[in-house]
């Protein structure tokens, strides 16, 4: 990682080439992916990667280029091309880069030990996770692969206003898909965990058993009759509500007047139990970082507070246009991606109830465990929600038979308003996470004749 000074050198070249503003986003790191199947390593993939994504503004016109070639002769060519490309865009007064230099903060987001933990130990973890899934129940006949991935590296954001911020970050995670079989039918159950530190991943047996339990719980599932019922969302299913909302909460979509929430700031939309954060500073949050993808300090942004729509998420440019301040929500997939607006650790605040108590207080309803297809209609303009779902029926406050091949549908505002119970089981195993919660009533579409 001996590239220090390169960003500054490059930014000087941009000024010389006539760019008013330029920004260099550099990442360098290593990746490792492992897959274990039937007790042995099936695949290993590794690489050292790195590159720069560069935004250039000439006459308020914007271009984006990237390169993985750090040689100075190549970078000289990059500068020329970036300036020439910007000329093709349309000027926009809000094409500007952040000016304020963020304060340095110490965050626990880097595991210096990660690379020195042997690959063998990581493979052993996967083997144990697979074995635990298989041992859970006779019905679990196989595991469709267990995976480990890690990324370990350095990020630097620098721009021509003198903003420079560098930090190290690591990510590692595991996933297991258990397959249960009965009477010729198969069901899959998954469990996974993402974190900054290898030793924060739960014991392999915990996740193996969790995946197996989910697969077994769905064996023999079939449809129920169409009806309107309360739906209790497990965390694995309930995140879909927040995922469906996120585009409408993005400041750029509000600016363009395409968000269905755009004119509703300050309105009470959800129930009192609905407090939703995008928190870039959350301790233990897998997405926590000191500065966002353009070097603006991250924040704990409250999007909904007790049901009231409080804030939208902004990057620097969209905030200028909206005459507000960036919320530190600029994100990019990697250096090849132009920055856009996205959520950080994005979650529904936990409640006081136990998940079991929510089920116990539900007479007749659906316990949703697995959602599919929910993402297909997502648009900032659309408030429709519809998804296929698998789970268990709730009868007289208890989990009863498994159900599948049904859909649930509602609108996003009706779901937010209908949340009448939130549990305390929020755990940050992914950046997008919710506790168990219940929506008072949704349309369930299934079989025509009542098979109950």
């Amino acid at each position, binding site marked *: 990682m001996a590239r220090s000074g390169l960003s500054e050198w490059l930014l000087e070249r941009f000024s010389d080439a006539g760019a008013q503003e330029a920004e260099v986003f550099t990442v360098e790191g290593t990746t490792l992916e492992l897959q274990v199947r039937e007790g*042995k*390593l*099936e*695949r*290993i993939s*590794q*690489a050292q*990667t790195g590159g720069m994504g560069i935004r250039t503004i000439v006459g308020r016109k*914007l*271009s*984006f*280029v*990237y*390169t*993985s*070639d750090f040689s100075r002769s190549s970078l000289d*060519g990059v*500068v020329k*091309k*970036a300036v020439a*490309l*910007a000329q*093709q*865009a*349309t000027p*926009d007064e809000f094409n500007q880069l952040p000016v304020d230099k963020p304060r340095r903060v110490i965050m626990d987001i880097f595991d210096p030990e990660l690379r020195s933990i042997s690959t063998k130990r990581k493979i052993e973890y996967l083997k144990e996770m697979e074995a635990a899934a298989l041992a859970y129940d006779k019905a679990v006949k*196989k595991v*469709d692969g267990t995976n480990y991935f890690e990324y370990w590296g350095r990020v630097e954001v620098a721009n021509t206003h003198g903003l420079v911020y560098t930090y190290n970050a690591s990510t590692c995670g595991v996933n297991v898909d258990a397959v249960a079989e009965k009477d010729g039918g*198969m*069901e*899959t159950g998954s469990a996974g965990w993402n974190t900054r530190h290898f030793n924060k991943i739960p014991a392999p047996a915990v996740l193996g058993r969790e995946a197996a339990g989910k697969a077994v719980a769905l064996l023999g599932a079939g*449809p129920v009759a169409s009806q309107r019922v309360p739906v209790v969302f497990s965390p694995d299913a309930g995140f879909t509500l927040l995922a469906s909302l996120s585009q409408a909460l993005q400041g750029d979509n509000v600016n*363009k*007047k*395409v968000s269905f929430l755009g004119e509703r700031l300050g309105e009470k939309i959800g129930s009192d139990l609905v407090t939703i954060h995008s928190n870039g500073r959350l301790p233990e949050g897998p997405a926590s970082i000191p500065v966002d993808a353009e070097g603006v300090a991250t924040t704990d942004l409250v999007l909904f507070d007790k049901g009231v729509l409080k804030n939208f998420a902004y990057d620097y440019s969209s905030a200028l246009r909206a005459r507000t301040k960036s919320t530190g929500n600029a994100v990019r997939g990697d250096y*090849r*991606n*132009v920055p856009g607006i996205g959520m950080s650790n994005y979650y529904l605040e936990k409640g006081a109830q136990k998940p079991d108590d929510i089920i116990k207080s539900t007479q007749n309803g659906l316990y949703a465990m697995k959602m*599919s297809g929910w*993402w*297909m*209609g997502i648009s900032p*303009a659309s408030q*429709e*929600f*519809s998804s*296929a779902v*698998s789970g268990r029926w709730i009868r007289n406050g208890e989990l009863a038979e498994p159900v*599948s*091949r*049904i*859909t649930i*549908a509602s*609108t996003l505002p009706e779901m937010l308003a209908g949340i009448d119970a939130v549990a305390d089981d929020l755990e940050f195993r992914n950046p997008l996470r919710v506790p168990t919660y219940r929506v008072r009533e*949704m*349309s369930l*579409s*299934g*079989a*025509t004749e009542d098979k109950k």
Partner: protein
Amino acid sequence: MSFDDVLVGAPVVASFLSPEEAAAQEKALSEIFNRDDLTSVLREALARGGDFADVYVERVFTTTISYSESKVQSVRYGLDSGAGVRVLKGDQTGYAYCEALTKGALTRAASTAAEIASGPAKQKIAKLSVRSSVNHVPFTVDPLTVSEKEKVRAVETADRAARAVDPRIAQVTIQYQESMQTYIVANSDGVYVADKLPMMWFTIDAVARDGDKRRPGYVRQSARRGFEFFSDNDPAAAGAKAARQAVVMLDSRPAPMGEMPVVLASGGGVMFHEAVGHGLEADGIKNQTSMFTGKLGQRVGSEHVTLLDDATLPNLRGSYNFDGEGTLGQSKVLIERGILKSYMNDLLTAKYLGVAPSGNGRRESYRNYPLVRMSNTYLATGPLEAEEIITATPNGIYAKELGGGEVDTSSGNFTFAVREAYLIQDGKLGAPILGATLIGNGPETMKQIDMVGKDISYWPGTCGKGQWAPVTSGAPTLRIARITVGGRE
């Protein structure tokens, strides 16, 4: 596994070369690594006793124009290049890649990948000889030779046409993307393939607004073609179509719920991609996690169901001459009149199942090892006119335009979204409906297909299975006698 419906294009790329420089760079790919170089990389890859090795070298030039609010928001242009080495040892795969195209970096990647095995070298490297193919993806105008101004003109044409449809069109967002991929595959069995694949991608998102009601409309066009793509993919027609869809949906009512007949308009092939296609990818057969395991020769659909996967259809988004392992792209009958005939294979699964590879081993980029993937998957045509199928349906839904889909290959349960749909009442089209989702179980739904038209068309998509792959799915107008519609009324 899902068939995306969001704007996930090829990776956003950028570079620093003039078109002339770019063309020169492309020519140089086989000059950076000649066949002797690749042979020595393969030798390094098998130095620790691997059974088989291949090397994949790739370069992709991409230009992306993002346009909204009638302005060019940004222009991105660039080059993504790298190389990956794979080593097989029994059922095990070692993979490593590098981004720098130098012999040193590639040799280091080879020795990392080689670590999947441990022992002395056993295999010799066969002499590399060129495998050739008919070109299924010819193009005439290299987009790298077309000025950015002309590309912006296509985008502006679509924007104006969309806004002219109705004053209630509140916003139009357009993405133009072209890419030109060159690659080399060489393996220790002596296969050497070099090819060049163009891709065009053009999407329009329109939003219609009436009071506080907003409705989206969306059109996507994509093909493996050069800039001549626009000669029969009129940007104005595409813009108008997206806008009309958004406007029509302003008057929509919530979709009904429950089981009913559904007529899928021509182009609804995503249902077959999800309902059966993924389950016929042979990695799921090898691992026995697909519900189609052991069902060759059995009935898995009605007699109206003949399903093919064909990488050789000219210039479609899912077409190619060779897959990511250098196997020739092929046309395969998967299901014939309802009977399961074959699976899709890559080299690994073909060896395991004792069949010939079917040219379905694809990779997203040099960062990825090959996986079994579909190409262009389609339902063969039937005898009926589309109108006959609607008229023969007293009540149900007409799904004019589908969105994406998703399947669980172990249970076979699938779901897909309907972007534009209408009620069918007394054999005639009625009111537009909003938010319909269709769900079912693969084989069960295949048995419910009772009418098939003669009007096939193809829908371009990007399929996700841990890696993204450009695909198309095709189908004529057809009827599913009974399927669950997930609405809210």
